[in-house]
């Protein structure tokens, strides 16, 4: 009855079977497939719409009601420069409220003048405008400046020097070019942590880890299996983002494909190692979610996904540079935007390698199977 078979490799290769089981489980879960692959694309689309064809900002101006409001409005409408004004007239209270809530950039009060701005003020012989703006908001400061220029010109100011404006909008220097490597890093971090952490803790909750522990399965096979399946899931995820960014926004890689591929792989290994570490002790899904948020939030803030991490003060820079996401994003940007080679990026590569080796080793040591 017992037809025993002995086959150490081939059909019964444990690492292969572990990876295969993960792949099957994943692909048979349509929701998971959507969230892993659909979400990064949706995010890129959303951000792309926000940043792509954005015209030069319209400056939102509110003119306080009054006899000369119409004349002020006409003066702004006669603008010949690239600035465009979105002008509205409102009561003083309403104007202030709009400024306070950020719906308008600047408020112009011309009520000191009569119905004709060219008519001089009786006191000092000039037209008089009062600007209300928020000096802490860049938009507001710029708006005040632009509105003032326009009104001064309309009032008859002559600029002593002649100027010419050349607008530059080349691929590589746009915000979307800066953003895509950041999103790539963020997606590698999120995918690695959630993808590895959730699956691992779920198996622990189901006592499947404990069941595996009672078999001769090698622990390294198991942990490697989880990491390798994560690498495989990552490929289409990353490709979707890069291909979409390439064809929708013309985001191109100025470095070599090899360098970008290497960095993506290293990033994926690093974050699946950290995911494994985050999941190494947690007994519930809630616990691991908390740990992963704790791990990710500092990197969302400091690692320069949406803006350069160098904007933070010098004192915290060593901490920021030691976070695993910072070297990943900065080296991806260095390759994709500046065409740097890997040889020039040894420090960030070393930081990421250290993170992946240390987290995998600690995860293996601390891993709770029960």
């Amino acid at each position, binding site marked *: 009855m017992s*037809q*025993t078979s002995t086959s150490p490799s081939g059909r019964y290769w444990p690492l292969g*079977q572990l990876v295969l089981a993960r792949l099957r*489980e994943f692909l048979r879960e349509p929701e998971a497939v959507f969230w892993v692959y659909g979400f990064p694309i949706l995010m890129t689309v959303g951000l792309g719409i926000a940043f792509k064809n954005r015209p030069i900002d319209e400056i939102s101006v509110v003119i306080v009601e009054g006899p000369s409001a119409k004349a002020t409005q006409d003066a702004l409408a006669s603008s010949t420069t690239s600035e465009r004004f979105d002008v509205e007239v409102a009561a003083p209270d309403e104007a202030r409220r709009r400024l306070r809530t950020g719906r308008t950039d600047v408020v112009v009060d011309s009520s000191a003048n009569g119905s004709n701005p060219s008519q001089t003020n009786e006191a000092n012989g000039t037209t008089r405008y009062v600007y209300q703006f928020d000096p802490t908001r860049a938009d507001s400061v710029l708006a005040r400046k632009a509105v003032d220029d326009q009104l001064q010109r309309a009032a008859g100011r002559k600029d002593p020097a002649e100027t010419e404006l050349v607008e530059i909008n080349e691929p590589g220097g746009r915000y979307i070019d800066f953003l895509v490597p950041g999103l790539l890093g963020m997606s590698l971090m999120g995918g690695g942590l959630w993808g590895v952490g959730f699956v691992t803790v779920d198996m622990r909750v189901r006592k499947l880890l*404990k069941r595996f522990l009672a078999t001769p399965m090698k622990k390294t096979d198991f942990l490697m299996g989880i990491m390798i399946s994560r690498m495989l899931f990552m490929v289409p995820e990353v490709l979707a983002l890069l291909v979409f960014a390439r064809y929708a926004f013309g985001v191109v890689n100025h470095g070599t494909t090899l360098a970008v591929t290497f960095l993506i792989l290293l990033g994926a290994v690093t974050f699946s190692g950290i995911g494994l570490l985050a999941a190494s002790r947690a007994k519930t899904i809630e616990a691991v979610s908390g740990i992963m948020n704790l791990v990710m939030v500092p990197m969302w803030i400091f690692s320069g996904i949406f803006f350069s991490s160098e904007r933070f003060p010098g004192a915290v820079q060593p901490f920021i540079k030691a976070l695993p996401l910072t070297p990943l994003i900065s080296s991806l940007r260095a390759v994709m935007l500046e065409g740097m080679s890997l040889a020039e990026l040894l420090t960030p590569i070393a930081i990421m390698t250290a993170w992946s080796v240390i987290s995998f080793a600690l995860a293996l040591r601390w891993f709770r199977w029960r």
Partner: protein
Amino acid sequence: MLAIRCHELVKRYEAKPPVEAVRGLELSVEVGECFGLLGPNGAGKTTTIEIIEGLLEATSGEVEVMGYHWGRQDDDIRQRLGISLQETRLSEKLSVLETLTLFRSFYRRGIEPSEAVARVGLEEKQAAWVKSLSGGQKQRLAVACALVGDPELLCLDEPTTGLDPQSRRQIWEIIRGFRQTGRTVLLTTHYMDEAERLCDRVAIVDAGRVIALGTPAELIASLGGDHVIEFTWASNGSAQQIDAAQFEKLPGVSESRIDEERVTLSVSEPHVALPAVLKKLASLDLELTGLSTRHASLEDVFVKLAGRHLNEDDISQSVTA
């Protein structure tokens, strides 16, 4: 030759106060026998079997499994051991055959996954996802996962708890089939009928110790008779002061016990004892509300030794439910 030997096994869980789940447990399981650990919930059965399976570390004491020791020869033991836990949720989106192929891959040698499917009678379900299996089928798959490494020792923790009677019988048949190949089975259960029908020998465990050991027949014989007479009476008269011991002197009665308002007598020859008991009851002028005779069971052995019922929790739950 011994398949399992435990000597002075102790497991203490660090807590305030520390909990001693196993307190000096002795156990010897022969190769080729089906051995049952019978006891109520919380007796230490699961802790004991998990120490034997290498999933828990004993606080002190010796454990030998098929002549090997945990900590030194882990892989030797695991290659020869098949287990099922009290509760494992296998991956729902893998098929029966895929699950077994995964488990098969962990062992150097074993049976074909399809053979394991056949042994537990899941041929019709082998391509179905685990999700679609009934509770009994899932449990048979769990046993198949234990069989696929072609083990010498099968350790099953409460393999039939929560299953319907038909599924329980199917599991019993699988275990009997395995035992017939000359291999060893260790199982835990809190069902006395399961221990009686399935096990060659039973250790009754309570509060972390073995309180009785033997074949089911030996254990029942230790009661002094393999039949039981039970009676209850109307408690409105002078009935409260009834002394159960007075029945022990009657012919054929070896032991008596009273709990709540029921007297239980161990009897070797019911046809001799019954008339004497009835006569005695008549002389006491008791109004009987119930009288029954039945075969003695391991439950009676447990009640005699531990002073309470095996599934007291279950009983109180069903009362409150």
